[in-house]
């Protein structure tokens, strides 16, 4: 009852939020989400490019609008995922070892914005490359070796993967 009343007041006046969370779930960080989002941006650019020769009818417009919306969303995922790893995972020991992480993170923010703004494959590929570099550093902080390989699906671009040891 009282909660319902407060919830209604909350929608009207908007109470402040007091956070009772600090880094939960603890210590689960993985750049894979950002990498997949960056690959998705490239793939969406490719799909948008394909539509350049399509008839300029309402169907094409609808497809363009859907693809552009997803491209926007995945560009944002890259930014959020990288920001969280940079802000929450990287602490003094990692930053001392990889002082370039700040500039790299900032460059990823800029590259993601650029990739969002236009339909330009080069921009999207550049974003993936920066995210790959971020992933390499991330795995190195964990003492995990990495390798580069084409992702086994379109857009088949070079992606950094961790070289994990299989359980015996």
């Amino acid at each position: 009852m009282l909660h319902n009343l407060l919830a209604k007041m909350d929608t009207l006046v908007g109470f402040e939020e007091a956070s009772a969370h600090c880094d939960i779930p603890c210590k689960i960080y993985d750049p894979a989400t950002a990498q997949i989002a960056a690959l998705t941006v490239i793939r969406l650019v490719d799909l948008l490019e394909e539509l350049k020769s399509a008839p300029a009818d309402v169907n094409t417009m609808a497809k363009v609008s859907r693809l552009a919306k997803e491209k926007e969303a995945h560009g944002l995922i890259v930014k959020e995922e990288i920001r969280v790893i940079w802000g929450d995972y990287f602490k003094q020991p990692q930053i001392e070892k990889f002082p370039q992480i700040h500039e790299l993170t900032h460059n990823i923010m800029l590259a993601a914005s650029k990739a969002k703004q236009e339909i330009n494959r080069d921009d999207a590929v550049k974003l993936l490359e920066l995210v790959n570099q971020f992933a390499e550093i991330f795995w190195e902080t964990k003492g995990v070796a990495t390798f580069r390989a084409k992702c086994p699906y379109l857009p088949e671009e070079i992606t950094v993967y961790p070289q994990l040891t299989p359980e015996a």
Partner: protein
Amino acid sequence: MIRIVRVSGLSMSPGMMPGDFAAALNWPASLYRPGQRVLVQHPAFGLIIKRLDAVEEGVVWLSGDSPLSSTREAMGCQPLSALRGRVIAVVRRRRPG
């Protein structure tokens, strides 16, 4: 003065869950004691709810109720002036079951 806040996160669970409301009362600095739940303006984490772990000369240590919470070391020792009130009531969100 009473300040009402909406709780987010799980570090004060099970006593406070996300979506609950908490009322915090302006509290005299000299009456803060370990064990009290408090509203804190934290320089890194913003406005947070925690439990007072220790009250020392002008400073306090904080902890969460849940084992998932950040450690008191991670939250650091905060000046008494960071405290924004003592939680005097929690209104729980009704949960199914």
